[in-house]
């Protein structure tokens, strides 16, 4: 169980970073930003939320300064969100490397939208997707 405000803080940073990556997609700086954000998501998804740089920043700098009740949530949905982010940024990185920056910016725009919705509206993507996936699986199962 983790402090639910942490991933939301991380999503806010990711939103800004991804916007920067999109705007600078044609430049080496943009590529560097994209590489950085891909590493961030990879750490969060593959190693765990404790290793996620924005989460570390939150726990060291932001959380001690916050007052009010701590809303606790399971670590699984935010970790799933990191994996989704990793999928987008890795794909974007690949598209930049093979010389398709516009396609890359389209893919990164999706990640940007997801991070923004998470940060601004606390949109629980996991809750929305989880049941839809299960319903599809059940539908496929029922047809057999």
């Amino acid at each position: 169980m983790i402090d639910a405000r942490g991933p939301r803080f991380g999503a806010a940073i990711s939103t800004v970073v991804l916007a920067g990556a999109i705007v600078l997609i044609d430049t080496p700086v943009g590529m560097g930003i994209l590489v950085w954000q891909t590493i961030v998501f990879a750490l969060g998804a593959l190693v765990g939320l404790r290793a996620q740089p924005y989460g570390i920043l939150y726990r060291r700098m932001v959380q001690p300064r916050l007052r009010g009740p701590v809303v606790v949530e399971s670590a699984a949905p935010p970790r799933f969100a990191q994996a989704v982010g990793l999928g987008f940024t890795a794909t974007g990185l690949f598209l930049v490397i093979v010389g398709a920056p516009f396609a890359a910016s389209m893919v990164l725009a999706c990640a940007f939208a997801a991070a923004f919705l998470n940060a601004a509206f606390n949109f629980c993507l996991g809750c929305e997707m989880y049941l839809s996936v299960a319903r599809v699986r059940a539908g496929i199962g029922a047809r057999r």
Partner: protein
Amino acid sequence: MTEVIIVVVVLVLATIAGIVMKSRSGRVHQRLADIADQSIFSVLPDAQVDPTARVTAIQFSSAFCQPCRATRVILDDVAQMVDGFAHVDIDAESHLEQIRTLDIRKTPTVIFVDAGGMEFARASGQPRKADVIATVADHL
């Protein structure tokens, strides 16, 4: 320059989408398309219902769903306050057939039924406590 336009357009669309979703989420409403021609108790025979309750809220939850936990707390609070109101928590993933029958798209979804198990309202997403109380009070 194109990239800046992309960011701005996505920002605007996402903001609109976010506001719309937020305003609809958790709204307690009555469905117009009435498939409630059978009691929910027959759809969910294994649900542990309180037979003395005049209004029952049936919450569908899934694992790792923080809004589900919050909704459960809200329904608990209302059940403490209001006599004749009870609630039940159903795991969505182990009731996939019923999910399809009841047209449940996300968790948490709360279905409000009367003593006969007929649905009169539902909320998709975490409802506000005041809305729950109002809905329940109307049907007690």
